[in-house]
């Protein structure tokens, strides 16, 4: 019983870590974009994954995003 609890906890922690990692590195950015409430109300058609990727990095690297 205790082992099961530990295994469940470990599985949940790993899942959280995996999701956090995907969000940190930008893998989950497109999913975020599709579900963003502000976008849903403002845009009729969502960008494709490719269009979104190019648009997003163009914006990101147009302002200071890496420090000394």
């Amino acid at each position: 019983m205790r082992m099961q609890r530990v295994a469940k906890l470990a599985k949940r922690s790993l899942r959280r870590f995996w999701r956090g990692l995907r969000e940190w590195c930008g893998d989950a950015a497109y999913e975020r974009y599709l579900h963003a409430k502000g976008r849903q109300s403002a845009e009729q058609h969502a960008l494709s994954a490719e269009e979104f990727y190019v648009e997003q990095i163009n914006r990101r690297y147009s302002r200071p995003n890496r420090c000394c």
Partner: protein
Amino acid sequence: MTGAFKFIVWLSVAIAGAGALGAIAMHRGEPLNATWFVVAAVCCYLVAYRLYSAFIAARLLALDDTRATPAEVHDDGRDFVPTNKWVLFGHHFAAIAGPGPLVGPTLAAQFGYLPGTLWLIAGAALAGCVQDFIILFCSIRRDGKTLGQMAREEVSARGGFIAQIAVLAIMVILLAVVALVVVNALKSSPWGTFTLAMTIPIALLLGVYLRFIRPGRVLEASLFGVALVLFAVVAGQWVADSPSWARAFTFGGVSLAFLIIAYGFAAAVLPVWLLLAPRDYLSAFIKTGAIFSLAAGILFVRPHILMPPLTKFIDGSGPVFAGKIFPFCFITIACGAVSGFHSLISSGTTPKMILRESHARVIGYGAMLLESFVGVMAMIAACAMPPGVYFAINSPASIVGGTPEAAATTISSWGYRLDAQTMTQLAHSVGEQTLLNRAGGAPSLAVGMAQIFSNTIGGERLLSIWYHFAIMFEALFILTVLDAGTRVGRFMVQELGGRVWKPFARTGWMPGILLSSAIIVGMWGYFLYQGVVDPLGGINSLWPLFGIANQLLAAVALVVATTILLKMKRLRWIWVTLVPMAWLVAVTMTASYQKIFDANPNLGFLSKANSLTAAIGSGQIAVAKIAETHRLIFNQRLDAAVTGVLALMILVLLVEALAQWYAIFSGHKEPVLHEANYVATKWAEGFTGSAHGDD
């Protein structure tokens, strides 16, 4: 946990921190173990975070979790993205952690380990973290506005313009100095040059994959890219061992400088997806991995600190850079304790992703504490090597001589024992022809890191691989700063140019793109070239200039923060930003004055120019060298002028702010805050911002 138990735990942490700090400060005799540094830093950070940041959050800023943040109000999935607290912490840390906290403390180790370590810890807790935290808060309350916009609205229009110019100036000097660090690390090093050169085709490959094959799949592409880069580190040894290949990848300083200038221009002009973004992904993964590995290595090896607490160079006669502890220790450490550049990340980017106001505490204050810890690790790595070796690597040839024998004689005469055989053997062990005269901090940090890593895994046999891994890691993320900075600088030039001639500001107009890229690359490229041909190694003049520019920007940020807090009627606690601001103004003004006017030619730009002029006049300079000397004289005067302009800008901003503060105090002017309107949050308590819902 009961209150009494908590109190005992925190009291123990405080006592452990104070004890470790005492040991570091008072210890004499046998070499001290690096564990003391780790304990002192971590305990001080914990106490500062638990007490000081909590005080700022509750009393000074009164963070309000019932208030919707810009990420909730605007949530567009692009800039405004509600992000989990720890994910955003990772984002923010990856953005603020650059080469500064690695290079600065390594250079400041010339004073001994004590001044730099104390400033890294105290400066971060009392100034750097405070700046990052409060600017982040101010920007959250203003829909994620940038520092320049806040300066314009809250201080004055001129204040905003000054902030904009200061950012551009710091960018130019920063890019030049980090490029110089790379040049000094890679000159005459076919292994290092090959490895770094290989990161370009690897990045291009990743760029194509992420654009056309699996759009946006950053994780898988980056892991594949990291594996290729690690292979390139190993393959570099084969290149270095092959005479013909080694020749193809062996460059002098000037050639490397031009290659880097060409790379910077290409990165600014080419589509972002092709080169810049994939390199940044590689860099982020390798940077994070290397920093955590270094922490683990230090804890595992627990090296002894061989550098004394204070060296004879506290009198200002240091070979790495000239100047006394005050103000140059603080100017040199720069980003590890306080970084003005962080205020650009804390405003504009991070505030648009934050979920709750209270998260600003861990993200703003906490991430800077971690950055300071990176600085402490760099200090440990630099001080764990024999001081003689440290000075041989970091001193210019014009001071210690260009051969191992000459360097050993000079450095031994300073009281730091060194024999020529040690340097030759060390260079051989790390797979280099020479480690002498590599000012810039990167090679000595790489030697320190390689020794720590090889004592953890592989022993002496893997020292050369670890050394080149460390060089690759530093050079890779320095070049990422370089290409990202050049592109941002291009936009700034276009924006400023657009005020004179409107079409220039159009970001999609190719002639404008090419011209603005050439202007920004030309500006930092000039300073880089000047540094490469400087007989004193360039770092000697450029790093202090960068430190002054960076600390001035921090002063600008703290002026803005103080003005906003005054308008918020937080007079009672205004010392929280006012004291670090006054300190930074004092440090930067003193440093600027000394760099321009000091009578010592090694320190003062103008006296150096005058001494060179006198040398020409008295016939001490060979005819063949006269044109080169005239160029050096011009460069010294240019450095003096740049320093003067930077100092003047902060003085003007300060006068503007003082006028504003006087008007508020005297009641002549009703303080107007430009905060966004209060909107109550609709998110339930406990909402974590996961893209996949809460679990």
